[in-house]
C-alpha cells in the first residue's frame, strides 16, 4: 500500500485535519475572541468542501474494508454542501451570548459526525459500517442537547441517544445473523454467498429495522418528532437532512450491492414500509401546529417517497435516490433556514405565528413557499423532478399501484404545505412577525438554497452525471 492510496480517503483526512486545526484554534483564542471562531470554522469547512470536489480514481484500502468510488465521492460531496449551508445558517444562533462559550464544540461535534458518515458511506465491510454509523450518531446526541438550559433540548438529546442505542442493538443483531449464515463481514463475500433463506430473512428484517430508526421510517419513527422539536433548529435541520441523507445513501448501497441476489425477498418489505411511511407520516403532519414537528413529519414522509426509488433496483433507482437527496438538501435547508431565521429574530415557531408574514417579510415568505412547493413536488422547482424520477424508478419495476399511492400521498401532503402558505399569504394577524434583516451568512445560505432549488431541476446535466456514476458503480 502506497502513500498515494491515502488520497482515496481525502474526505476523511481533510476533515480530521480540520478538526485538529479547530482544536488548536480553540485553545489559541482568548475568551473575548471566541466569536471569531464562527467565520473561521465556516471558511475552514468551505475549504474542506472544495477539496472534496477534486476528482480522483476510486479504489479500496485496508484489504477492502474501505472503498472509494465516484459514487461515494459524490455522496460525500452532497453531504459537504449540505453541512456548509447548515454552518452558514448556524451563525446567527451560535453568536448569542448563551452559546458563546461552546462555539467550537458545535463545529467539532458536527465534523465528528460527518467523519462517521463518510466512513459509513465508504464502508466495505459491516464492521467499518457499524463504526461509521456509531461515530455519526453519538455526537449528534450532544448536539441535540446543545441548548442545555432548555429542558426540551436536553430531553431531545436523551431520547436520541436511547433510541439510537436501541436501533444499533437491533442492527447489530441483524448483522450477526447474516454473519452467521455467510461467514463473512465483507460486502463482496456476502454478496456472493448470500441466498434467501429464513435466517437471512430474519437478519435482514433486523437490519432494515435498525436502518429504519436512522432514516426514521414508520413504524420506527417515534423518536423523530420529539427530538426534532426539542433540538435547536440548526441541529434539527442537520438531523433531517444530513443524517438522514447519509443513512439513505448507505442503505441504498448495501441493498443494491450486498443484498442484490436476494432482491426479490426484500422488495415486498420495502414496499410495505414505503406505504406505511408515506401514509402515516402524512396523516400525522396534517394536525401539527409547531413548525418543527410539522417539518419532522414531512421529512418522514419524504423518506417514504425515497423508498420508491430503492424499489427501482437498477441504476435508475440508485440515481433517483441520490438525486432526490441532493434536491432534498437544498429544499429542506431552505425551509429550515427560514424557520431558523424567524426563530432567531422573534422566537416564533408555530404555524399560526406565521400569519401575515408576507406583509412584513416578503422575501422570506417567498423562499419558504418555494421550498414548500419543492417539498410537495410542484413544478418547476427541483422537488418535482426529484419526485418524478423516484416514481419513474418505481414504475420501471412495475409498481404502478404504489406510484398511485405515492402520488395521492403527495396530494395529501400538499394540503399541509399549503396550510403554511395560507398562514403566510392569506391569514391576517394582529401582531405578525416584525420585519427584520437576517445576517449576511444566513442570506448567503438561503441564496445557495434558492439557486439549488431552481438549478438542480432544470439543469438536466446534474441528473445525467448522477445516472452515469450510479450505473458505473453498479456494473
Amino acid at each position, binding site marked *: 500500500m502506497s502513500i498515494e492510496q491515502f488520497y482515496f480517503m481525502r474526505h476523511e483526512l481533510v476533515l480530521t485535519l480540520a478538526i485538529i486545526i479547530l482544536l488548536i484554534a480553540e485553545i489559541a483564542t482568548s475568551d473575548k475572541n471566541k466569536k471569531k471562531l464562527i467565520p473561521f470554522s465556516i471558511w475552514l469547512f468551505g475549504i474542506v468542501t472544495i477539496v472534496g470536489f477534486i476528482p480522483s480514481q476510486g479504489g479500496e484500502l485496508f484489504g477492502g474494508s474501505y472503498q472509494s468510488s465516484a459514487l461515494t465521492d459524490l455522496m460525500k460531496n452532497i453531504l459537504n454542501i449540505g453541512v456548509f449551508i447548515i454552518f452558514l445558517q448556524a451563525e446567527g444562533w451560535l453568536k448569542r451570548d448563551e452559546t458563546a462559550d461552546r462555539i467550537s464544540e458545535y463545529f467539532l461535534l458536527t465534523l465528528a459526525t460527518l467523519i462517521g458518515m463518510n466512513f459509513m458511506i465508504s464502508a466495505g465491510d459491516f464492521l467499518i459500517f457499524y463504526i461509521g454509523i456509531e461515530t455519526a450518531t453519538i455526537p449528534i446526541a450532544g448536539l441535540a442537547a446543545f441548548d442545555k438550559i432548555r429542558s426540551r433540548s436536553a430531553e431531545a438529546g436523551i431520547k436520541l441517544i436511547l433510541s439510537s442505542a436501541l436501533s444499533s442493538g437491533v442492527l447489530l443483531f441483524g448483522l450477526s445473523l447474516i454473519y452467521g449464515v455467510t461467514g463473512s463481514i465483507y460486502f463482496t463475500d456476502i454478496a456472493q454467498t448470500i441466498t434467501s433463506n429464513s435466517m437471512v430473512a430474519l437478519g435482514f428484517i433486523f437490519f432494515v429495522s435498525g436502518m429504519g430508526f436512522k432514516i426514521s421510517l414508520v413504524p420506527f419513527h417515534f423518536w423523530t418528532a420529539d427530538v426534532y422539536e426539542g433540538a435547536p433548529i440548526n441541529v434539527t435541520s442537520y438531523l433531517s437532512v444530513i443524517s438522514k441523507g447519509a443513512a439513505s445513501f448507505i442503505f441504498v448501497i448495501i441493498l443494491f450491492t450486498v443484498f442484490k441476489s436476494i432482491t426479490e425477498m426484500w422488495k415486498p418489505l420495502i414496499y410495505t414500509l414505503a406505504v406505511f411511511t408515506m401514509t402515516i407520516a402524512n396523516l400525522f403532519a396534517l394536525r401539527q401546529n409547531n413548525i418543527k414537528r410539522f417539518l419532522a413529519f414531512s421529512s418522514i414522509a419524504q423518506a417514504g417517497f425515497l423508498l420508491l426509488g430503492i424499489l427501482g433496483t437498477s441504476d435508475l433507482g440508485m440515481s433517483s435516490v441520490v438525486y432526490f437527496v441532493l434536491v432534498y438538501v437544498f429544499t429542506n435547508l431552505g425551509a429550515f433556514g427560514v424557520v431558523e431565521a424567524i426563530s432567531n429574530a422573534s422566537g416564533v415557531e408555530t404555524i399560526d405565528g406565521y400569519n401575515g408574514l408576507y406583509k412584513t417579510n416578503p422575501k422570506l415568505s417567498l423562499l419558504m413557499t418555494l421550498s414548500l412547493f419543492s417539498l410537495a413536488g410542484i413544478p418547476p422547482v427541483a422537488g418535482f423532478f426529484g419526485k418524478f424520477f423516484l416514481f419513474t424508478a418505481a414504475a420501471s419495476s412495475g409498481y404502478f399501484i404504489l406510484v398511485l399511492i405515492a402520488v395521492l400521498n403527495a396530494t395529501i401532503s400538499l394540503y399541509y404545505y399549503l396550510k403554511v402558505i395560507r398562514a403566510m399569504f392569506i391569514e391576517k394577524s394582529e401582531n405578525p412577525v416584525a420585519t427584520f434583516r437576517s445576517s449576511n451568512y444566513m442570506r448567503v445560505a438561503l441564496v445557495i438554497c434558492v439557486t439549488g432549488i431552481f438549478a438542480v431541476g432544470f439543469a438536466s446535466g446534474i441528473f*445525467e452525471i448522477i445516472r452515469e456514476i450510479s450505473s458505473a458503480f453498479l456494473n
Partner: protein
Amino acid sequence: MNILTLLIVVPVLTMAGILFTKDMKSTRMVSAIGMGIQLIVSAVLVFMYLGARKAGASDEMLFVADYTWFKSLNIHYTIGVDGIAVAMIMLTGIVVFAGIFASWEMEYLTREFFISLILLATGVFGFFISIDLFTMFLFYEVAVIPMYLLIGIWGSGPKESSAMKLTLMLMGGSALLMVGIFGIYFNSAPDGGPLTFNILEISKIQIPVEAQRFFFPFTFIGFGILGALFPFHTWSPDGHASAPTAVSMLHAGVLMKLGGYGAFRVAMFLMPEAAHEQAWIFIILTSISVVYGAFGAIWQKDLKYINAYSSVSHCGLVLFALLMMNETAMDGGILQMISHGLMTALFFALIGMIYGRTHTRNINEMGGLMKVIPFLSVVYVIAGLASLGLPGLSGFVAEMTVFVGAFQHPDIFHRVVTIVAASSIVITAVYILRVVGILLLGPVKNPHFEHLNDAKWYEKLSMITLVLAIAGIGIAPLWLSNTILDSLKPIVEKLAMAVTF
C-alpha cells in the same frame, strides 16, 4: 427563435418586467402590454399556421422543435402545434388579454396578482404547445398551482376552503394522470427500443390492450377532473364562485379546456382500443354532467354559481362530444371548447363588473339593470343568447355540430344519450332567460342602483374583444371548423382503426 417558444418567453419576460414596477398603474400597464404582445404572437401564429397549411405542409404538427432534456430517460422539450392547438392558443390569448383588463382596478397586492395570473397563463400556453408528455404534465401543474393563491388571496366568500378544495381535487387529478403517463411511457416501446414520452411517436405504435384497459381510466379521469367530469366536478362551482373575476374567466374559459384537450390528445389518441371499450361509462357520466349542470344552474341565486354550474354542463358536453369519436362530433366538441371558453369568460367578466357596481351577486336583489347600465346589460344578453345556442353566435355552431355528430351513431344507446344531452338546450334556455328577466328587465329594485356608472373604457375593451370573437365564430364558423377537421383526421383515423381491430 421558434414562434412557439416565444409564447413561453413573452409571459416570462412580462412577469420579470412586473417585478420591477413600482405602483399599480405601471404594473397593469406592463401586464397589458405583455399580454397584448402575446395576443399578437398568437394571431401571427394562426396566420403562419394557415399559410403553411395552404402552402401544402402536411405534417401532423407544424413548427416542431425538439430539445433533449433528460437524455437517459428520453425526456425532451418537444413543441409543435396542429389546428386544434392553434385554436386553443388563440382562445387563451384572447381570454388572458380580456382578463387583464377585467382586473384593471386590482389594488390589493397588484404585482403579485398579475404575476400569478400570468404564471397561470404561461402554464396553459405551455400545455397546448407540448408534444412531450413530461413537458405537458409539467406545464399542467404550473397552470394549476397559482390558482390556490389567486383564489385564496384575492377571492371572496369562503375563499380559503374553496381554494383548498379546488387545488387538492385538481392535484388529485394530476396524481391519477401521472400514473397514466407512466403507464403510457413504460408501454411506449412494446417491441423493445427506447421508451419515449413523445405523443407523436407513441401514436405510431400500439400500446398493448391489457395496459390500455388499466391506464386509460387513470388518464381520462385525471384530465376529466379538470374538465368537470361528473362526479368530480364539485371543485368547480365553489372555486369559480370564490375566485376573483379574471381568475374565473381564465379558469372556466381556458383551464377547464386543458381537461378536454388532454382527454382526447393523450387518453383517447394514445389508447384508442380502451377508449372504445370504456367510452360508454364516461358517456353516461358526461350526460349526467350536461343535464345535472343545467338543472343545478336553475336553482342558484348567485350569478357566479349559475355560471359555474352552466360551465359544468357545457364542459360536460365537450367530453360527451369527444367520446362520440366521430369526426363531426369531435369537431363540435372542440368548437364547443372554444365557444364556451369565450362565452364563459365574457359572463364572468360581466358578473365581476356588475358585482363591482351593485356589491351583490344575488339575482333577487337586482332588477332593471338595463335602464341604468345599458352597455353591460346588452352584452349580458348577447352572452346569454350565445350560451343558449342562438344561431349567429358561437354556441349554436358548436352544439349543433355536437348533436348532429352524436346522432350519427345508429345504435340505441348513443341515440338515447344524445337526446338526453340535447334536452340540456331547453334547460339552458330556462335559466338564461330567467336570469336575464330578473336581472335586467322590470323596475329598478334598489334605489341605490339608479346612479350606477356604465362600463369604463377598459371594461369595454375587455368585453368587445370577447364579443367579437363569439360573433366571429358564429357568423363564419367554417374556417375554424375546417382547420380543426384537418387536424382531427389522424386522431379520428386512429380511433376508427381501433374499431376494426
